[in-house]
């Protein structure tokens, strides 16, 4: 039975995209079965960028993990640290002071701006509109500069520490942020006009990859991808964390559900973020920046959810009362959205695939949490740490002796 299916597969014309492909900035493997230019079947294999972070976390102390987890993703580094901090603070039974929470939200929104701008550029590039790509990335430098000015680094801001944040915002920083934001606001309005009016860009986005509300609910998409289908899902509103109850963000919805809607939703979210940041700056609560968090965290389990630029980010944290966590599990938004690409791909042109994939704003290396090893060993489901280690040692020994 299995072999029959296999031969049937071979006879079809399959276009492999990845693991190395110019359309993918990170490794992932897609196989599109095509009939002429029309895709009839799509499948994906992930796990190429598995870095063993969840295991690494278990041998570092609570503070050191902050920086390891921040590096799960190079674009949304702050939300990872925030999710982790909120979870650990919950376990330790402390709460960061309001000023720290407000700064956390502010940095998160700045990060959203930088992430969405980056995404707009990538999408424009996938569509073959390189000029828009260059312009958006040029303007994105503004928000990177703001982040550098307030935190000291462009990418890994390291704003969080357990129990608060590292830096304060003074008048000078607020001024820098406001200046940058007014420039970005103007540009965002401009780009919004471009993506919703440019005839050729609309030809590539309008009516492509339409996901209805019902489909979105069944597939379980999250983040802007869900909101572009009219599904009101946003952790910032559903379960406010940090200072989101004090400085709420408006939810942006669109009911068209196509690629164009996804672009528009993200751009409108930029405007919403800019407004929110202004509110925070106007009304920054006074007070301390940190509270003390003990080196050893009380035993227990906690989950924490935050809204990353791509959707809901989920952390599970378990402590056994020592200086190091017992287990941390991360689920990143890309994993939830990936299924939508495979479902929507069927019936579209091959030329739409990169756009469709970019539409969910995939981030492969943060979503690669585990890999299924399909060879070596008889029991595929259970690999103990020792067995995995032994497998690795044997593998490299074999490599060295040149058996492969």
């Amino acid at each position: 039975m299995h072999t029959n299916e296999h031969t049937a597969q071979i006879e079809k014309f399959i276009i492999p995209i990845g693991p190395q492909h110019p359309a993918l900035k990170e490794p992932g493997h897609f196989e599109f079965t095509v009939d002429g230019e029309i895709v009839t079947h799509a499948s994906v294999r992930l796990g190429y960028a598995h870095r063993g972070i969840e295991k690494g976390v278990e041998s570092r102390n609570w503070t050191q993990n902050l920086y390891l987890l921040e590096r799960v993703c190079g674009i949304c580094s702050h939300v990872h640290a925030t999710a982790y901090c909120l979870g650990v603070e919950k376990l330790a039974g402390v709460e960061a002071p309001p000023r720290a929470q407000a700064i956390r939200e502010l940095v998160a929104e700045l990060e959203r701006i930088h992430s969405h701008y980056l995404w707009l550029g990538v999408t424009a590039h996938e569509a073959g509109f390189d000029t828009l790509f260059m312009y958006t990335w040029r303007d994105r430098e503004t928000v990177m500069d703001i982040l550098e000015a307030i935190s000291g680094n462009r990418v890994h801001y390291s704003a969080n520490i357990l129990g608060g944040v590292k830096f304060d915002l003074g008048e000078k920083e607020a001024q820098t942020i406001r200046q940058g934001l007014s420039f970005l606001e103007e540009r965002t309005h401009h780009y919004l006009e471009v993506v919703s009016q440019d005839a050729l860009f609309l030809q590539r986005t309008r009516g492509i990859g339409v996901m209805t509300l019902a489909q979105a609910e069944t597939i379980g998409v999250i983040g802007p991808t869900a909101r572009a289908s009219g599904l009101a899902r946003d952790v910032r509103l559903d379960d406010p964390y940090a200072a989101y109850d004090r400085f709420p963000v408006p939810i942006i919805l669109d009911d068209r559900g196509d690629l164009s809607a996804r672009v528009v939703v993200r751009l409108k979210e930029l405007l919403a973020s800019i407004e929110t940041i202004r509110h925070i700056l106007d009304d920054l609560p006074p007070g301390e920046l940190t509270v003390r968090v003990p080196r050893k965290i009380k035993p227990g389990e906690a989950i924490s959810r935050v809204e990353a630029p791509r959707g809901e980010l989920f952390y599970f944290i378990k402590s056994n009362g020592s200086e190091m966590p017992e287990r941390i599990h991360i689920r990143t938004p890309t994993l939830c959205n990936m299924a939508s690409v495979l479902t929507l791909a069927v019936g579209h042109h091959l030329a739409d695939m990169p756009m469709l994939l970019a539409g969910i704003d995939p981030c492969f290396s943060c979503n690669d949490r585990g890999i299924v090893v399909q060879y070596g060993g008889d029991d595929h489901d259970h690999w103990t740490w020792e067995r995995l280690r032994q497998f690795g040692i044997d593998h490299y020994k074999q490599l060295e002796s040149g058996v492969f």
Partner: protein
Amino acid sequence: MKLATLLKDVWQSLWRRPATEAYPLVKPETSARFRGQLHYNSQGCTGCCLCNKDCPANAIEMITLDKKNKRFVLRYDMDQCIYCGQCVQNCRFSCLSMSPEEWELAAAGKEPFTVYYGQEEDVKDVLAKFTPEDHPEAAPR
């Protein structure tokens, strides 16, 4: 529906200098909070070692020569440091700081990356005392 919505930007770009930074020719200004190379001032240090306890990259080591006379040497491995600033945050006596100017840290070899901070004679003592054989971790690389 319009064609060529970016026409105005393109027209302006024609008369503008490229947005590309002329980096090696002109060094860009970094913000005052920029986290560059780590610096240590042994004055005021108590040798509590809080700084190296939480360093996520094991990039610093506090070498205590004589706790009573406050003879401390800090070995700093720039190539391991991830410039997170946790050590600066941890030090309660403000002995550590990160320079916003020194960030051009690339080098062709490994040696320039290991720096010993402290009083001059202390560093000399450390280098003399720790021969590579018995203390490989403290040896100059």
